[in-house]
């Protein structure tokens, strides 16, 4: 029985589907939603904006709030009887996800995220997480 699942969410539709899947397949498990902020972008402005903030943690949480809000809505819609845990990490999504995967039993991740630009600068996150994760990974399509 899997009872501790990590769901990395970037706010894309695919990542929402991953959460829905996790709620459905692991109804008994504790689910942690992970959002990575300050990821690489074409001119690096997002990451630099965070680095320049007076309180990095607060700024990071602010960026992540919207994604977590949406995640809770999805959990409510699915009538899931779980309290979602949330976690915010900084920097490269793959590194952050793989880094926190060790603290969980399974990772449930959407097969791809946002735009072509993201793909160019970050690569396919799901594929890399799948290859490097220390725990089993479910890739939702």
């Amino acid at each position, binding site marked *: 029985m899997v009872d501790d699942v990590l769901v990395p969410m970037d706010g894309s539709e695919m990542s929402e589907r991953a959460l829905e899947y996790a709620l459905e397949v692991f109804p008994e498990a504790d689910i942690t939603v992970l959002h990575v902020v*300050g990821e*690489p*972008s*074409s*001119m*690096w*402005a*997002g*990451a*630099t*904006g*965070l*680095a*320049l*903030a*007076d*309180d*990095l*943690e607060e700024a*990071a949480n602010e960026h992540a709030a919207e994604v977590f809000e949406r995640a809770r809505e999805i959990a409510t819609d699915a009538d899931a009887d779980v309290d979602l845990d949330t976690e*915010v*990490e*900084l*920097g*490269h999504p793959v*590194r*952050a996800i*793989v*880094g926190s995967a060790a603290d969980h039993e399974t990772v449930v991740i959407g097969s791809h995220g946002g*735009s*072509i*630009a993201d793909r*160019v*600068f*970050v690569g396919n996150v799901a594929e890399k997480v799948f290859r490097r994760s220390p725990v089993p990974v479910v890739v939702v399509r």
Partner: protein
Amino acid sequence: MISTLLLIGILVAIFVGYNIGGATTGPAFGPAVGADAISKTAAGALMTVFFFVGAWTIGRRVVDTLGRDLVHDPGVFTLEASVGVLFFIGVALFVGNVFGVPASTSMTAVGSIAGLALAAGELNWAVMGEIAIWWIVSPFIGFWVSLVIGRYFYAALNRRIAMERSEGPLFEIDRSGIVPTPALTDTTNLREVGGVVMVVAIGCLMAYSSGTSNIANAVAPLVGSGELEMNPAIIIGCLAVGIGTFTIARRTLETMGNELTELPLTAAIVTATVSATLVIFLSAIGIPASFVIIATMCIIGLGWGRATRPMTVGEAVRGEESAPVSVGALSEDREGEELPPIGEEEEPERIPKASDLFDPATTARVVLMQNVVPAIATIGAYATFRFVPIFGL
């Protein structure tokens, strides 16, 4: 009598200029418009005026480099070839705008012209080498200067440039005299005016720098072909840019695609000032500069400098005595490694650290990606001009 081909050439040049106007208004005046300092129309007008000033004064040197010096024999710029080169520049701009992968117009222009010259065996390698060296050196200068600012001066700068906009318009028109003059409204304070004047002034500086380096991208092939004189070419190019600033720029000012507006205002100002100054300097010595890459390296430098400044975030906020954090934090911080605790009173769990945001390998990847479009244009231009026999070479 203007030949049809020249007319096509001018039209393509206008198309390129139009896109340049659309693409560069965002970075230049995005922060000012975002802060409600000026309207979009005013941004378009200022952009056009300062672009023209930059193009007319210094921009012609870059036109000379691209249109004459880069090739041994300007004869390679047949009208057909000029249209071909402009086509590649236009496609690069298009790709940048549509896919959100910013491509340097100047690098693409140099690349396409080099491809053409190479195909014709007329490339001036000395000039090409000089340009390439500056392309490598200038981003590092921008990176280093911004790093120093981010590390040692950012906090102080940020306190000075606190920009708070009060309710209501900044100016009102005083019509009591014979000549209507703008006067400050009651809700405006002096500090606010200072901030507004500053963002607008820096927008103008950016517009000027854009004019110095970008006019060549639109008109250099036509000037090189000898079919168009320098001055009429610059005027036509600037008119096209002007049309772009009043039309598509309205949209680019709004889209979140403009990375500079994601920065805090102070950071945008620092980045804009450093990179615009570098671009103007390079244009003055006739080097077509790549604003996108210089600005990116400035942004990374600023953020990295700030992230590795010698005190922890919490302490910086509370103004306590600084505790040195390893400067090499970035290089030590490899994958899977436990992060050292920063402040003692914090919870023992992993604390997000700003230097997590700057991974050298990923940074290199982003910078590399910005060179992809110009590289493709160079190879594409070479292959096209070498093997497609319609350019009269």
